[in-house]
């Protein structure tokens, strides 16, 4: 463990040294930490103001970040590659509403006053998961396979 940590630090140091020597860092300015104007209510559409533009820091068209139903369903990919873009409008706590790891209260109970938000496990999912788990046992794993085990292990001993 210690040897690996030392090797890792050496690798980081070497990487930083090479970086300083060759200056491979992109010269472009970073993406803005916050959106310059406060956005209105509802799901935002970037293309309302940025029709055919490319989002500089992400090298992607603004349309890729329009909050359409398809975006909401597959946001995991863009959130992984361009979290800085998300952070321009969303605080980390917004992600934690659903992705906070260990939880006591399911998101749909915590936000029972917001039926307009897509939430996992609405209503009695405890019963339904016995059915969905047969068809697709992998769907539970991303959130519960390495986390939140206090909940699962009560029955799955």
């Amino acid at each position: 463990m210690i040897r690996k940590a030392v090797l890792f630090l050496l690798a980081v140091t070497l990487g930083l040294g090479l970086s300083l020597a060759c200056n491979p860092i992109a010269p472009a300015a970073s993406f803005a930490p916050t959106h310059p104007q406060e956005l209105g209510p509802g799901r935002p559409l970037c293309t309302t103001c940025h029709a055919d533009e490319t989002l500089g820091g992400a090298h992607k068209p603004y349309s890729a970040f329009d909050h359409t139903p398809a975006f909401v369903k597959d946001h995991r990919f863009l959130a992984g590659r361009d979290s800085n873009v998300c952070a321009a409008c969303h605080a980390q706590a917004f992600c934690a509403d659903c992705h906070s790891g260990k939880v006591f209260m399911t998101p749909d109970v915590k936000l029972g006053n917001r039926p307009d938000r897509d939430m996992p496990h609405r209503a009695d999912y405890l019963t339904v998961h016995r059915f969905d788990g047969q068809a697709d046992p992998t769907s539970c794993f991303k959130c519960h396979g390495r986390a939140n085990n206090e909940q699962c292990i009560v029955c799955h001993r």
Partner: protein
Amino acid sequence: MRQRTSVVLLATFVSAGAWAQDVSGFSTTIAHFSQQNTPGFPSVDLAPFTEFLGVDATRLGSDALSLHLYGWGVNDLGGPSTILGKSGGDLSYAYLDYRFSQANAEFKAGRFSVNQGAGVEQVDGISGRTDLRGGFNVSAFVGAPVHYKTQEPPSPSTYTYHYQTDMIIGGRLGLRLGPVGEVGVSYLQDGSSPPWDLATPPPVDYTRKQAGTDLRLAPTAKLELTGHTLFNVANQYQAPGGPVPDGHRVAEQDYTLRYTLLPTITVTGNYTERNLEAYFAGTNMPNLFRTDVSDRHQAVGGSVILGSATATEVVLDFRHMSRETYGNSDRYGADLRMAAAESKVKYGFGLHKVSAADLFMPGGSVRAFYGMSREEGRAWVMVEAGKYTASLDGISYHFDDGTNPNLNGKSSLCQVVGSVGVKPTENLSLSGDLSYGANAYYQNETSVLLRTTYRFSAASKGGSK
């Protein structure tokens, strides 16, 4: 992380927030009273109080340095109502973030979540990323994986091998191809000791080493393919008497194709494949996720979205799933959503049908096979009038085979949640929910929830978050 360490870390970070020039945050307190009635058992009254607290402090002496905290704690006045016991809590994240003004470079230290290709983890450690010349970008993290205790002490046969989860390291190298796409390769390793090096090798090898490739291709503005493939690259060994590794190296393939037919009509297609042994490698609940390691899951699906990003959205969706040890199932249906941003009234409906293969249950009390098909329905409405809000949300399930033992004799389940709220000031909001449900666990369950949220902000610039 030990509780004492968490408290010290929290106190240190909170005091560091005093140096911040911009501080914002929120406090949400939820009192949840419920009564669960199960035939043959006395009714149970529950009264947990939960506090969620989040703080974002920016410009900590430098414009680039910020602090982010979020956690929760619960105490049950009637309990112990939860598997946590009478009280509990968690620090979801607490980290210092330094964002450079150039190259989207960023450095984090503390507890945070990472989402870097193969690595989707909660970590106590450090991470960094930067854009490089030529469209490249690189990110990496190292630390200790965050694990949660269980009710019972860990035992080798049922829970986890701590010596294999003492550290976690990962990284991703990406290449951005202008607006037409991005490709990336990533790596993740959990644990520092291979099991065969241990004095007493465990019967099953849970070593997790995963490599990943990811891509996003958008040759035109209307067409986009995005997804990733994960490979299990650990040298999994067969312990004496242990299961034979199935040899699949592909843990997961998950790809989605999106085509914008017209500005308001989008068509999507998705393919997913997961080989369970490789996909579940490293789970700390092997008794749940590693029961049949040679199993495989595949799914194809798609959707047609009408009125995408307009006031009226209709989503027609279909998904065919296939699991080798179970059979096939199809889920299809439609959702309607009327939610114009400026509208005071928003509402939606959804209907879905699940046609699934019968489940073989040799221990069933009536027969060996039980139906798994069902219909789902949901309707919701939300009204916002000035500082007042109200909502109603109803969900029902009807199962075709009411004799399925999983249903405890109930073929129909439902839940209705009604909520009213008021926002006396710009920063304070109060709301109350009343819900009723009939489900397979409790003949009926009634609950009242009171929610208080206070947001504070001293930020001097930027949009709302």
